[in-house]
């Protein structure tokens, strides 16, 4: 692929009004910041839902504290099991679809890609704006689902038929559980909108990266962040159509009476009898996981890319093994398409299929291992500046090791028999999503905040936030491995009914206390983030002395990004180059 043709930066003939400049903007930077702000708001909502889950798990026999009197009288002051199901289902849905994916792909992807490749904006700016605004129907859908009859969706973020899809011939309420009625329908609509948003975005990213790189910016001179977002966009473009169709099929089953997931004999719920069907519940799992496995890579690859850049910059040392790192990204993504069945080992599908999926799944650990060792090698004999961003990036590495290693237990089909649907899985999920993706997000926010908002965040409070989050998050999530090994199932309203798991209650209580403290610690980040917008020191152009193109333009960059199209002469990781006066050489620095 030849280097991209340079484009002259555009200037607008007239000054735009407030609405067109900041709300309905086609500027990728504004769109990126819109994604980030929306995601942060939902991070708070999703976090509060998680705290409510931990409240019930920590004290299963307890009453709802403080707000108990706002609940209906017949509840007797206690959380109902269906309400609990709704809590963890919406927690997961919001975190995955309204926080992590929009933040990483929509937020950082939008903000960074044109800047890092030297383009004035994305290839399709109006399509880009549409991709953000498609999130709003999803926000409205999911939020309003809390207030409909039966409540928000409560059948797990995986929304398996037949509990999610069973319907009676008439009406909008589900016979299977109250929260698979209108709430589930809104959930499906919301996720279809998120899918469309992501697909629109991914078209933009791929086109921009392929076509609009500045002169001299060969593919192998792009920062890892861009590579990661590029591969992520390809994943999204190829996997999302399958999810969107699956959601549509379930939506049709729920509204129009199709029977894609309804078995031939229909279903019986006491007195209620559904219509006869002609489909298979297992079909959903295949379609869903065909997307949702690549989805987990969509949720980690951008963070991996950002961590690579942040580590190299703060270690003042080139990224170790640039090309292997790129190949590893591609390998993870490619393999990610053929492992979806590892979520279905116990599902009733032919166990021989399980063997095939196990082989592919075990192999995916290889490129992940390559990445971990390269990150460690980047820090070896380095000259590390332990900024808040760097600390979060370092934590990403070791926490991802834990998350990745626990994945190997689950990949092993016989061992998975024991740990499937237990807290071992929940531990794994949170190590890769909270302590890897979210730490990556924190690292990215601390690192690129100056460029986004023209202000510096408080380094001191960033470090306090990191220390507390690091310790407390491990306190919350590591014991989950232990209780999972003991077989403690997930999605249980009250595990103390069982002699096998009642003795684990002290651990559940400990994790819940730690979770409350963890939630409280995030207030520091929120205050730092919001407060620095107004009170932070003005940011210079290149506060971190980094090499990549975004650090050559003002903080924040103007519309059109670059006054003149930059020309790139070298790779992004020229740090500690022998013979150079400074310990870093920007990409735009001509060769001697």
């Amino acid at each position, binding site marked *: 692929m030849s280097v991209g043709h340079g484009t002259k930066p555009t200037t607008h003939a007239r000054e735009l009004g407030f609405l067109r400049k900041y709300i309905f903007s086609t500027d990728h930077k504004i769109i990126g910041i819109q994604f980030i702000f929306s995601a942060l708001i939902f991070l708070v909502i999703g976090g509060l839902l998680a705290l409510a889950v931990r409240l019930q798990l920590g004290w299963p026999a307890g009453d709802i504290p403080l707000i108990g009197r706002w609940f209906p009288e017949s509840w*007797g002051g206690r959380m109902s*099991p269906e309400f609990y199901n709704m809590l963890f289902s919406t927690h997961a849905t919001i975190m995955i679809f309204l926080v992590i994916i929009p933040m990483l792909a929509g937020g950082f992807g939008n903000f960074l890609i044109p800047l890092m490749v030297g383009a004035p904006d994305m290839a399709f700016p109006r399509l880009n704006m549409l991709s953000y605004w498609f999130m709003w129907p999803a926000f409205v859908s999911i939020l309003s689902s809390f207030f409909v009859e039966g409540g928000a969706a409560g059948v797990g973020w995986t929304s398996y038929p037949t509990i999610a899809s069973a319907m009676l011939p008439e009406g909008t309420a589900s016979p299977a559980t109250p929260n698979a009625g209108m709430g589930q329908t809104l959930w499906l609509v919301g996720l279809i909108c998120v899918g469309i948003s992501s697909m629109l975005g991914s078209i933009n990213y791929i086109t921009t990266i392929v076509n609009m790189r500045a002169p001299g910016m060969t593919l192998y001179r792009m920062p890892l962040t861009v590579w990661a977002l590029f591969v992520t966009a390809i994943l999204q473009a190829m996997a999302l159509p399958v999810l969107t169709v699956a959601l549509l099929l379930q939506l049709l089953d729920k509204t129009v009476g199709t029977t894609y997931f309804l078995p031939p004999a229909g279903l019986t719920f006491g007195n209620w009898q559904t219509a006869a069907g002609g489909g298979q519940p297992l079909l959903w799992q295949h379609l869903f996981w065909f997307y949702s496995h690549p989805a987990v890579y969509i949720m980690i690859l951008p963070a991996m890319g950002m961590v690579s850049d942040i580590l190299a910059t703060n270690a003042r040392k080139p990224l170790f093994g640039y090309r292997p790192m790129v190949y590893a990204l591609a390998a993870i993504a490619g393999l990610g398409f053929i492992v979806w069945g590892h979520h279905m080992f116990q599902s009733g599908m032919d166990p021989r299929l399980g063997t095939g999926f196990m082989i592919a799944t075990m192999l995916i650990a290889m490129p992940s291992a390559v990445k971990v060792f390269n990150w460690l090698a980047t820090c070896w004999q380095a000259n590390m500046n332990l900024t808040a961003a760097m600390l979060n990036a370092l934590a990403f590495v070791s926490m991802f090791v834990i998350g990745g290693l626990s994945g190997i237990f689950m990949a092993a089909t016989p061992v998975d028999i024991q740990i499937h649907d237990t807290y071992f899985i929940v531990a794994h999920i949170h190590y890769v999503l909270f302590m890897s993706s979210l730490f990556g997000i924190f690292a990215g926010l601390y690192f690129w905040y100056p460029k986004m908002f023209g202000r510096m965040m408080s380094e001191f409070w960033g470090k306090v936030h990191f220390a507390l989050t690091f310790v407390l998050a491990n306190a919350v999530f590591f014991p989950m491995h232990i209780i999972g090994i003991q077989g403690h199932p997930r999605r249980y309203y009250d595990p103390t009914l069982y002699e096998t798991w009642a003795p684990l209650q002290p651990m559940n209580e400990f994790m819940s*206390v*730690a979770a409350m403290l963890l939630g409280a610690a995030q207030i520091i980040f929120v205050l730092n983030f919001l407060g620095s917008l107004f009170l932070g020191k003005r940011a210079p152009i290149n506060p971190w*002395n980094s090499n990549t193109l975004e650090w050559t333009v003002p903080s924040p960059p103007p519309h059109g990004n670059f006054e003149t199209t930059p020309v790139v002469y070298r790779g992004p990781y020229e740090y500690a180059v022998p013979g150079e006066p400074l310990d870093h050489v920007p990409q735009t620095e001509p060769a001697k």
Partner: protein
Amino acid sequence: MIGARRMAPRRWTRPLVCSLLTTLAATLAGCGGSLDTGYSIDLIYPVRKDPLVLAPLPAETPANPVPPGKLDESIRRLPEIKGKLLDPDKLTDAQRADLKAALDAAFGRPAEPTIRVLGKVEDEEYADFVTEAPASFAALKLADPTVEPDDKQKAEKDQAYRDKTLAVGGKLFRRHCMHCHGVVGDGRGPSGAWLSPTPRDFRQGVFKFISCDPGLSRLKPRRDDLRRTLNHGVEGTSMPSFALLTEEERDHLVSYVLHLSIRGEVEYDTIKTLLDPNQGPDALTDKKLDRHVASRTGLFLWQWAQAATASGATPAEEPKATDPADAAFPASVRRGYQVFTGQDAGCISCHQDFGRQARYRYDDWGTLVKPNNLTNGIYRGGRRPIDMYYRLRCGIPGANMPKIDSKNFPDADVWALINFLRALPHPDTLPDDVREKVYGVVDPKAVAPKHAGGGHD
């Protein structure tokens, strides 16, 4: 920029982090597992707001049950189809306050449940029941029958025993039952309205699966009947088996259900009297309402005690042929078929097409219930022959399945009917002629399976 000035560590940051970690460790050390403290002391039994369903019930026979979440809506529409409702909304504030005070005094609150029959009752019709109360408590095992007599001391000991039993039962109820049956036992817990059939509403003092002639027991079940429901669950519904609780726990639960039922029935009866147009608005003011509550509490306690001490429906003779391999079995099944389809017992008039085409009808709680599809092999009240005997001899109160009296149908006929019912889901055990009439085919292998898919038992 970086490294130009290292951030000076604040003096208090290290101690801050260390103390937080210490607090965490202390919390871990202090974690001794969570205790079940039961109901909050602030929680009170709310006075009923949903309408009372009165006789006569609508005669409609809908094809479909009430949709999920629409129970109360469906009950409020009963007057449109000639049903009768009484709305507690029509109580004046003063009446409601008086009622609440009287019920709270007699029945306590969820954290401190009790049953007290308070004060003297002049009304001749009910005075006896009030004085019978202690005996009723003993019969219902709500008092310790082994305590030696000394009247005042015994009464106090009984009271304490009763309150302790009910408190333990209440705590268990909150943990295991409340989310379906509701705090007051109205079947409208957060999970309840989304189940079909809906969980039992205890507040009318009516229970379906009894083992005693309703004429003798005044329609109340015996403790054993409730315990049987807890042990086996109600097959085909969402009522699970609680056999994995200890026997003592199940006993306490039965006592607490009794408490909720008596409270509910007293409330039902009192609201009915308060809103009775013939009585006039001053019928039950002040003391009169208290005495009404006391008298009804005594009455319903007495009814439960009657059921507890009445002898159950005991078969006079044993069945002759019970094993399908027995030579006399086919004849017994044929006789059962005759009884079932005959005019006198009239089973087939409700269990149309052996239940396969039965339609829903309204029960005493205003909900819809369907005569069982007897080809399914699911028996809500229990599948033992003696359970079927109880259903036939005692009927099913609430759902209004009539009983088969022993004058017109001796036990031999009832056992024959039961043999027929047992064989009905298993076409290979039916005689050929009966099989043809029921399933339309002679070859047992040609009968379509109950469910093509997973099947249900």
